[in-house]
């Protein structure tokens, strides 16, 4: 990914168009569209966070759904206790979204720190399987938690409170709230990419042994990136719970981890902006492809994944730079 000053006109055009579209969307006043776009923003944040380890670090984490789910469960657990008027481990529950962000980031980051310390001792295929296994562990943990409805999950009656000055129940406000987080994170990640930290991580991806020989403790760098990525994904989980009014183990399912990877690769891996495009493409396909197929042959829409599966195979075999690569060209 080029530095800002080195970007060609296609980059500038794309960024300007994306920003304009993102800001103007709620003004169309279409509730359905705003909700759909909010969902895209939430998954875009999670996918961009995943790209920090996937694209930057070359670490194929197949367990990011766990961090998303942890963030969502912060909202769900708080809601349950607030509703019942009970305490959690002796502490009063909070519905304040900013405190929930903090808690989600700490919990997801903490889980990533503990599991990552084990995962990062391995490489390649083993890393994929172990991240998947730890995520599955958390999935079964939440399924077994009867206190919070186990498999059925928690239906929320209200969104988190915006600290008194933000009404998150308002569709447009919540949309801009999610957008702000996405833009903030992208700006931060963009800086990170070109920072010393980002260069060490990228160097370690290309040749870990050389970076170590140069004196960089790459294990610590990679662990930091992993924890950071998990914390941001946890924040996305808080947004996801609020966007859907629902929290359940399904968010921690390994299918979700797979979908996040699909978004990153579809959009363009290692580009930070690519995953945003990928999330949009994936969710739009999920939303409209069934209807399109039904138009072609009635009843076929139900089986849209019969089309998605081979499409992913084709993307894996042939398309290496993703949608962003097609749009702005260049790349490496």
């Amino acid at each position, binding site marked *: 990914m080029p530095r800002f000053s080195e970007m060609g006109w296609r980059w500038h055009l794309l960024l300007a168009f994306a920003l304009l579209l993102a800001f103007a969307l709620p003004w169309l006043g279409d509730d359905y569209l705003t909700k759909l776009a909010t969902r895209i923003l939430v998954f875009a944040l999670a996918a961009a966070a995943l790209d920090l380890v996937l694209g930057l670090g070359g670490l194929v984490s*197949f367990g990011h759904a766990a961090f998303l789910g942890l963030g969502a469960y912060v909202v769900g657990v708080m809601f349950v206790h607030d509703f019942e008027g009970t305490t959690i481990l002796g502490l009063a529950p909070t519905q304040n979204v900013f405190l929930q962000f903090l808690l989600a980031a700490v919990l997801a980051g903490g889980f990533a720190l503990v599991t990552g310390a084990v995962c990062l001792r*391995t490489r390649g295929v083993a890393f994929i*399987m172990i991240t998947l*296994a730890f995520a599955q562990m958390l999935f079964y943990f939440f399924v*077994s938690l009867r*206190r919070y409805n186990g498999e059925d999950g928690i239906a929320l009656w209200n969104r988190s409170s915006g600290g008194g000055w933000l009404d998150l129940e308002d569709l447009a406000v919540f949309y801009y709230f999610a957008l702000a987080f996405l833009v903030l994170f992208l700006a931060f990640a963009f800086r990170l990419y070109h920072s010393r930290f980002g260069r060490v991580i990228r160097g370690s991806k290309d040749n870990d042994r050389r970076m170590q020989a140069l004196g960089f403790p790459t294990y610590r760098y990679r662990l930091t990136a992993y924890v950071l990525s998990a914390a941001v994904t946890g924040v996305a989980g808080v947004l996801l719970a609020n966007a859907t009014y629902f929290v359940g183990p399904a968010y921690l399912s390994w299918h979700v981890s797979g979908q996040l990877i699909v978004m990153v*690769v579809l959009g363009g891996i290692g580009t930070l902006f690519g995953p945003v495009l990928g999330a949009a493409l994936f969710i739009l396909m999920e939303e409209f492809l069934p209807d399109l197929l039904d138009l072609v042959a009635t009843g076929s829409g139900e089986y849209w994944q019969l089309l998605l*599966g081979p499409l992913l*195979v084709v993307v894996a*075999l042939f398309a290496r730079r993703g949608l962003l690569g097609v749009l702005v060209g260049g790349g490496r």
Partner: protein
Amino acid sequence: MDLLLLLQQTLNGLQLGVMLFLMAAGLTLIFGIMDLINLAHGSFYMLGAYVTAWLVGLVDAFLPALALALLATAAVGYLVEVTTLRRLYGRDHLYQVLATFGLILFFNEGIKLLFGPQPIFLQPPDWLSGQIPLFGAPYPIIRLAIIAVGLASALLLWWLIGRTRLGMLIRAGADDREMVQALGVDIARLFGAIFALGAALAALAGAMAGPILAVRIGMGEDILILAFVVIVIGGIGSVRGAFVGALLVGLVDTYGRALLPDLLAVFLERTVADAAGASIASMAIYILMALVLAFRPRGLLPARA
């Protein structure tokens, strides 16, 4: 806690263990030799169960149906290798994950289209239904049969890998792929054969599990992830490691679910012990995996010491 319960749970654990071994054996060979991660291995398990159930309904004879289902799944496995996975050897693992994830979606949706979204029932033959007295209490025959088939398959694999020419090539391929190729072995055909073998083993596990678990869409995915845990514990690429890991995971998981709530009840309140026991039991094997990794990052019995 009485001895009978312990013995029965040991058998249940063994039964889960040998099923996991059937899944893990094929997977670990593919990892070890081709350095390929195949998420769609669980689809072969599902295919085995569905095709067996369908054929049993058609011809009403269990063993021929099973044999045909194994052949069919092996053929599907071979086809998948030739058309798709062959192009992914040596590529970044990420693209293998993406492609095989796509294959899972394809197979799940295809099965839904052909057999409907509801679970179907796999009728075991009369001679496998029912129970026989064991240690003075009835025990299902089918579970004993699964253990027998699993152990027999393990023996067969040991013979195949340790004593035949194909096995020699497999071992050589795991050690040094390029050298085997340079010596004139058609590595593509070897990989295809290994893939078909792995698919057939997974199908066998699925067909045997069909009568005791439901034959449903996605049935292979849960056991696939357990098989990953088995492989990580046993050591990637090692069939012996997969066997040890599979039995370990099967026993720990079964004992955990059966005994932990009672064990915790000794020092906790009953309701608390039940809830905590269920939670800890569901995580037990992952904790086991983490412990093994912490002390032996390459697994208990790594393929290459």
